[in-house]
């Protein structure tokens, strides 16, 4: 059975960190499970956590007046759900729901922020990796916004 510090290396955010750093981060984490339809968090609520999906699928949803709830992104194994814990005001910008039975590692964002503040070397390395991940998310979101499959594009 893999320990939490080993499990979290499935994400590029934590891959190739030093063992003692992984242990430190894993100290802010726990295993969680969700049934299909369970809500991980709701738009507007305080954002104190984030999740690394191990198995299953999580939908990120946004309520759009007159259109209802739209799924704007999903996260599968190895992907992280939730970035709002990183920056004030620490409130969720989207809602997240398990599409199917899902297992994940849940991180306490406040705990991790405190550890990064206490160990700025770790904080820098972690933030560099998180930035790289966020650039990928931003690039994908821009491509999604471009509506490339619209009529006439191909």
């Amino acid at each position, binding site marked *: 059975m893999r320990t939490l510090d080993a499990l979290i290396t499935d994400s590029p955010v934590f891959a190739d960190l030093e063992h003692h750093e992984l242990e430190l981060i894993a100290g802010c984490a726990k295993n969680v499970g969700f049934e299909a339809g369970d809500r991980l968090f709701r738009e507007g609520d305080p954002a104190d956590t984030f999740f690394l999906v191990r198995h299953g699928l999580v939908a990120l949803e946004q309520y759009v007046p007159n259109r209802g709830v739209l799924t704007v992104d*999903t996260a599968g194994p190895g992907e992280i759900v939730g970035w709002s814990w990183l920056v004030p005001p620490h409130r969720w910008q989207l809602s997240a729901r398990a599409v199917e039975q899902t297992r994940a590692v849940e991180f306490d964002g406040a705990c991790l922020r405190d550890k990064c503040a206490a160990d700025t070397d770790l904080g820098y390395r972690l933030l560099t990796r998180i930035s790289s991940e966020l650039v990928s998310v931003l690039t994908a979101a821009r*491509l*999604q916004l471009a509506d490339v*499959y619209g009529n006439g594009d191909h």
Partner: protein
Amino acid sequence: MTPLAYRVERKRRETAGTWTLDLEPVGEAIDPIRPGQFTMLYLFGVGEVPISSSGDPALDGRLVHTIRAAGAVTRGLCAANPGDVVGVRGPFGNTWPLELARGKDVVVVAGGIGLPPLRPAIYHVLGNREEYGNLVLLYGGRSPTELVFRQEVERWRARLDASVEVTVDTAGHDWRGRVGVVTKLIPRAPFDPGNAVAMIVGPEIMMRFAAQTLLERGMPVESVFVSMERTMRCGVGLCGHCQLGPTLICRDGPVYRWDEIAPLLEVQEL
């Protein structure tokens, strides 16, 4: 260069504006069409369009074309009914690198109406399964209702010898699959980047990001192939309508190795 007469034998609706036509020769047939090649379909009195084969290359004689109604000719072809006769010239163009892919993993990345030109290559790999490594299909569409070949893709997904992931750009609450751009599926797809061949079809911007992500995953550039689309008229490299810099897509393509075509796509004037 003279079109041969083909009769529409069967017609299937794929999405609101996309239809698949099965065509049988009325008399003389064109040469067998191979995966990646296209024909010029002639709607009598209206005009001609290049359409890739979307059928199983193992089925001799019958042509299968999947067409999105976008202009006068394609709208007319989509409105054709069984029994109607259309003209066919071809086959034209080069083929998917299925020989090069032999013994390797095959990664198929399709966006929107880009899946039909890739379907013959998928059929070929599935029909000669022992000759290839992992078969990975990553298919992205605008929304669930705009995905083509949905039932067939589900059948492929159920196979144990293929890995199929489908994603859409936007979906309602009832969609239980993935949402997001197709390139997001590449980093964790089950293939060995050092021993794989990728075939990509979709809008050019999607192909660019897909190729880039495959290269970031460690795939050599000479293993990445795309199929290009431009306005074509003659199909045999004479008229120049499909010229892209130094290349004529109908004659030298439509399938290109990524490093051959990528520099041309960066030139806005082309």
